[in-house]
C-alpha cells in the first residue's frame, strides 16, 4: 500500500513535470487563494494578539466600568463603545470617589474625551482627541514617556501631554517640551510626549499617538464644568482580588444609582470582547471573500486534471490492461491534484505571511503566527485538492478499458 503510494507520488511528479507550464499556473491559482486566506487570518491574529497582550499586561488586575446598560447582544458590533458621545454618561464624579475608596482598589481612573482643534504657532491639528483623565492613567494604561513627564497631582490645569504623532505634526519635532498651543481658547504647555504606541486599538478606545491628554479638571472645564465619563479603569491591588473588587464595585454603584444597574463592569478578556467581536466579524467576511479565490483556484485544478485525464486516456487504458484497479487509477490522479494543491498551499502560506507583513507596514500592528492559521491553510489546501480532484479521478477510473486503448494521442 505504502509502496503503491510512493509510486503514485513519483508518477505524479513525473507527469506534473512533463507539463511544467500548466502545472505552475494551476499551482499559482491555489497559491493565490491560500495566500489571501492566510494574509487575512494573519492580520486578524495580529490584532487579537495585540489587544490580548494589552489586557494581560495588567496580569488580570484590570476591570473596566462603562456607562449605559450592558449589552447582551454579541452581534452588536458597530459600536464597541456602549456610550454615544451625544448622550449623558450615567457615571458621575461621586462614583469615582466611591470606587477609589473601595478596599483592594489601587486606582480608579476616569476617562473623558472631548474634541477640540489645536492651534500651534505654525500648524493646526484638526479634530484631535482630547483625553481628560487623572494622573493614575499612567498606571492602568501601561504608557511610557518619550520625553518629559506624565501629568501628576501637582500638574497645572494648563499643562498637557501629547502623543508623538501629534507632536510631530504640530511642532515638527518629537521633543516639543515647553512648546505652547491653544485649544478652545485656552493656552496649554506641553510637559511630556508619549512614546509611540504600537496599539492604537486598545481597551480605552483612544488613539494615544494622536491625543492630547489634559487633567480631568480641565476636561470638566471644557464641558460646562460637568464630567462626562466614558469609562472608568479600575485597577485591583492583587489579581486574586479582582473578582471581589468587581463585585464590590457593582453593588456600590448600584446603591449609588438608586438601585439601577445602568453601567457594566467587565474584566479580563471580556474587556476586549467588543473589539474582538468586531474583528472576528471582519475576519469572517474577509476570509469568505478570500475563499472565493480559493474556489476559483480549485476549479483551475479540476480543469487541468480533466485535461490531463483526457490526454492520458490511452495511458489509463494501458495501466488498467496491465493490472491497475480502479482504485489505483483514482489514487494516481487524486495524488496528482493533491500534490498541486499542496504545493500551492505551501507557496500560498508563505506568500500570505509575506503580504501580511508588507500590508502591516501601513497598519498599526504586526501579523501574528498561530497554529490555527496554519491548520486552516493546511485543511483548506487538502480539502481543495481532494474536492476538486475527485471528479476527474473518478472519471479517469471509470473509463472503459477497451475504449481507452482505442484512443490515439
Amino acid at each position, binding site marked *: *500500500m505504502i*509502496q*503503491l503510494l*510512493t*509510486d503514485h507520488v*513519483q508518477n505524479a511528479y*513525473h*507527469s506534473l513535470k*512533463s507539463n511544467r507550464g500548466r502545472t505552475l499556473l494551476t499551482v499559482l491559482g491555489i497559491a493565490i487563494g491560500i495566500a489571501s486566506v492566510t494574509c487575512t487570518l494573519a492580520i486578524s491574529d495580529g490584532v487579537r494578539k495585540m489587544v490580548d497582550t494589552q489586557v494581560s499586561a495588567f496580569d488580570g488586575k484590570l476591570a473596566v466600568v462603562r456607562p449605559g446598560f450592558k449589552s447582551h447582544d454579541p452581534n452588536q458590533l458597530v459600536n464597541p463603545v456602549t456610550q454615544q458621545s451625544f448622550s449623558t454618561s450615567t457615571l458621575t464624579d461621586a462614583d469615582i470617589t466611591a470606587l477609589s475608596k473601595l478596599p483592594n482598589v489601587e486606582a480608579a481612573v476616569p476617562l473623558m474625551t472631548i474634541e477640540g482643534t489645536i492651534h500651534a504657532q505654525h500648524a493646526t491639528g484638526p479634530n484631535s482627541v482630547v483625553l481628560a483623565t487623572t494622573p493614575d492613567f499612567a498606571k492602568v494604561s501601561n504608557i511610557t514617556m518619550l520625553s518629559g513627564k506624565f501629568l501628576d497631582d501637582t500638574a497645572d490645569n494648563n499643562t498637557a501631554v501629547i502623543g508623538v504623532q501629534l507632536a510631530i505634526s504640530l511642532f515638527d519635532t518629537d521633543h516639543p517640551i515647553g512648546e505652547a498651543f491653544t485649544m478652545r481658547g485656552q493656552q496649554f504647555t506641553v510637559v511630556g510626549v508619549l512614546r509611540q504606541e504600537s496599539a492604537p486599538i486598545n481597551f480605552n478606545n483612544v488613539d494615544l499617538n494622536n491625543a492630547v491628554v489634559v487633567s480631568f479638571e480641565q476636561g470638566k472645564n471644557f464641558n460646562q464644568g460637568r464630567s462626562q465619563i466614558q469609562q472608568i479603569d479600575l485597577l485591583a491591588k492583587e489579581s486574586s482580588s479582582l473578582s471581589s473588587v468587581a463585585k464590590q464595585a457593582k453593588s456600590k454603584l448600584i446603591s449609588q444609582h438608586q438601585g439601577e444597574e445602568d453601567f457594566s463592569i467587565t474584566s479580563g478578556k471580556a474587556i476586549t470582547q467588543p473589539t474582538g467581536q468586531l474583528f472576528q466579524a471582519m475576519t469572517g467576511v474577509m476570509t469568505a471573500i478570500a475563499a472565493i479565490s480559493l474556489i476559483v483556484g480549485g476549479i483551475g485544478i479540476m480543469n487541468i486534471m480533466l485535461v490531463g485525464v483526457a490526454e492520458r486516456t*490511452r*495511458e489509463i*487504458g*494501458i*495501466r*488498467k*490492461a*496491465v*493490472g*491497475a*484497479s*480502479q*482504485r*489505483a487509477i483514482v489514487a494516481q490522479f487524486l495524488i496528482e491534484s493533491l500534490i498541486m494543491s499542496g504545493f500551492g498551499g505551501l507557496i500560498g502560506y508563505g506568500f500570505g505571511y509575506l503580504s501580511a507583513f508588507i500590508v502591516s507596514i501601513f497598519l498599526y500592528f504586526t501579523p501574528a503566527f498561530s497554529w490555527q492559521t496554519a491548520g486552516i491553510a493546511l485543511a483548506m489546501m487538502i480539502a481543495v485538492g481532494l474536492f476538486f480532484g475527485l471528479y476527474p479521478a473518478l472519471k479517469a477510473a471509470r473509463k472503459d*478499458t*477497451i475504449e481507452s*486503448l482505442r484512443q490515439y494521442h
Partner: protein
Amino acid sequence: MPKTTTSTPVIQLTDLTKRYGFGDTAHKALNEVTLTIEKGEFIAVMGPSGCGKTTLLNVIGLLDRASEGDYDLDGKSVASLSGKQHARIRSSQIGIVFQSFNLIHRLNVLENVALPLTYSGIPHLKRLERASEILKTFHLQEREYYMPWQLSGGQMQRVAIARALVNNPSIILADEPTGNLDSRSSHVIMEELSQLHKQGNTIIMVTHNPNLTSYASRVITMLDGKIASDTSTMPDPTTPKKSVKVPLNQHAKRKEKAPKAVKSPRKKTRKAAK
C-alpha cells in the same frame, strides 16, 4: 489436443455470448462460443474483420465482460469476481500484447516493462531489476533507457512482450502482435513467441497473417462470432500429415479476407463448429 492432461483447462468458455446494443440494433460479437484451452497451447485465432476475434481476446483478458455464458479461468468462474479481483488477475496471470504496442510514451523502456509490477506491490528497485532481466532475454539491454519513440516497431513490440511477461503470467494474449510490423520484424516477434511457447506458456494470438499460423499449435478460425474451425497442428512428427477441407472454405470465395491458413497441409481438423 496437443497434450493430453487430466488437469483443469486454463481457460474454459461455455456458450459465451457478447452482445452490443439492444433490441433491433443488437449485435452479437460473440455467439455462444465454447472453447477449451489447455495449458501450454499456442493458439492462433484467425478470421475476417469483425468476426469477434478481438472481442474474444478482450473477454479472455478480462478487459471486457461477456453478456452471457461462463468463463472459467483455472477452473474458477470469473463472472462472480469483483472489478478489483479482475485487476489482480490481469496483473498476475495475464499478459497482453497489443498491435499498437501501447507503451507509455512518457516512460522509458525499462519503466514501461516494469509497469505491471507496480500493481503487484513490488518495490521500485526490484521492479527495475526484474524488468532489466527480462529485457536481457529479448536482447534489448542496451536500449533500457531509450524512450519508446526512439525504437523501431519491432523493438517496441519486443518491449511490449517483455512487459507482458514481466509478471510471469500463465497466459499471454496477443492481439495482432505483428500487425504493424514488416515481415522481417514479424518473424523475429513470432520467434520470440514460439520460444515462450516452448518454455511452457499458454499463448493466444489473434492474427490476420496466415503465414504466422505455422508457429501455432492450434488454429481457430472465427466467423460471425462463432468458431468456424478448430485445427490443431500435430506436434508429433510421426503422425501422417493430411490436408483437410474446412467448411469455411465455401465462405472464403465471398469474403476476401477469409484465411488461407486452413489450406496448410500440416494441419488437421480437430473439431469443426457448425
